[in-house]
């Protein structure tokens, strides 16, 4: 049931992208998103598509796996595109279908927005697919460290994030188990009227919540039992290191972003 959706999963491999520092990947992702929002030319969009495809190939994650795993996203992208084509009222009228007048701007803007959505999701997925969740947390902690001076409890936030990320697969597994146990008792939440289907979610959600609370309590106790007293002044076992390759990638990405920005101005 939940097996096919890959958002937030990590696949260990030995690739160029996997080896990059998580900070590099996050900075690159941010630069990429900024670029995507300032451009408005089809030529540059095709460039971005090429860039994303290149990243996917470099990561050695099978393209088919990505396509299948993001199935729900395709629907969203397709819906966005069709919505724009049907309801956009700018530009030249091309033809009309069943009373909807289709304008050329509809295609262009629909294409743009659908592309933005698509590229952004693929890139973000690529980040989580190639970076262990804990490395992402370490990177976030590093980015937020300057804010400790303003009184932001960065270390606490980081450990909260680490725990939540850690528990996602556990909870998915738990959900799967509960769903199967209830299905064995005849529960069917895939059929019937919407109201019945929503009601059929209760036998899944209640046990899930209960086990989540129990788990949280047990975890808190286990942490305290091992002498955890807040996250300040803790060292970490895995250090994230910025290597030469990371400097090169960040420089390249920054240069590319600035030059694209100057080009279209």
């Amino acid at each position, binding site marked *: 049931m939940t097996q*096919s959706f890959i958002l937030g999963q990590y696949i260990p491999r030995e690739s160029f992208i996997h080896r990059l520092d998580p900070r590099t990947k996050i900075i690159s992702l941010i630069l990429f998103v900024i670029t995507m929002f300032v451009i408005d030319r089809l030529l540059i969009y095709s460039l971005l598509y090429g860039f994303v495809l290149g990243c996917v190939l470099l990561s050695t994650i*099978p393209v088919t796996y990505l396509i299948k795993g993001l199935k729900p996203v395709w629907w969203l992208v397709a819906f966005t595109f069709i919505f724009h084509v049907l309801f956009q009222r700018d530009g030249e009228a091309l033809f009309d279908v069943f009373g909807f007048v289709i304008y050329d701007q509809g295609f262009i803007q629909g294409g743009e927005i659908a592309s933005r959505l698509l590229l952004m999701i693929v890139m973000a997925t690529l980040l989580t697919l190639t970076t262990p969740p804990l490395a992402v947390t370490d990177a976030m902690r590093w980015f937020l460290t300057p804010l400790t001076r303003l009184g932001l409890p960065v270390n606490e936030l980081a450990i909260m994030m680490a725990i939540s990320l850690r528990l996602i697969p556990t909870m998915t597994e738990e959900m799967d*188990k509960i769903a199967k*146990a209830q299905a*064995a*008792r005849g529960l069917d939440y895939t059929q019937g009227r919407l109201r019945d289907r929503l009601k059929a979610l209760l*036998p899944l959600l209640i046990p899930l919540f209960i086990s989540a609370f129990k788990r949280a309590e047990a975890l808190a106790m286990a942490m305290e039992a091992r002498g955890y007293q807040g996250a300040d002044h803790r060292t970490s076992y895995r250090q994230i290191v910025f290597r030469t390759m990371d400097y090169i990638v960040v420089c390249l990405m920054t240069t590319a972003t600035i030059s694209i920005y100057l080009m279209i101005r």
Partner: protein
Amino acid sequence: MEIVFEDVDYIYQPNTPLEHVALQGLSFTIPSEFFTAIVGRTGSGKSTLLQQLNGLLQPTSGTVTVGDTRLPGAKSKPLKELRRRVGLVFQYPEHQLFEETVKQELLFGPKNFGLDLGQVEAKLPQVLQDVGLDESFLERSPFTLSGGQMKRVALASVLILDSEVLVLDEPTAGLDPVGKKQLLQLFRYLNEEKGKTVVLVTHNMEDAMANADQLVVLNDGCIDSVTSPKHLIEKRDQLEAIGLAAPESIKFVDYMQQTLGVNWNEDEATVDTVSQALIKRIKAGANK
């Protein structure tokens, strides 16, 4: 209901980097009204196997035939019918409880399967008694119960369906010895007196040997052997090799042979036969 596995493979997340082959080339039969134990170490595919029995998972290739239902390929209606006829109790079933009272919890399954609720309610006291609880539990909230009691309620919520086949995944894990014995006796009673086909998944060889008519030994997703408990004694060396501990009684037979010089010729080694042999030997005047 007879259950036939024919060359069954099951692969988790096929064609992805996370692909994992859980079952490979399984072929065996669970005869109707048999007590079958499925044994194997952790990760040998036991839980995956038992989910094939009521169509929660369906073979990636090969077929599972349960009564007159063939998997894969059953539509949702026959599948639901199959789930009514094959009652499945998961490991740690207490995690599935959600209703306000034990009574509602017990009626959850029967409601889903559209059984006659009047008839089912009449059976409530009996089912509770079967699992070692009494009627006073009916109006209590399942969340105020102890772990063991919750497990019993969850078990009762499947027993009340009166399925022809009962599939149990480590049903006694975490229970005290007395509770464990009671439940095993109940499963045996359901099998012998009520004619239920029982499939017990366990890694406890004592339980498997003492109760089952047939043992399916799994190793790394493949069938190691399908055997009767009687013949297990011949394979005791192999058991250790695939991560299962030989039952104490069999270990004791080895001990008797090595230390006491007792020759063991019988084809069965249960607590009873072993103690009989010892008594015989003592009566015959052995001084060791």
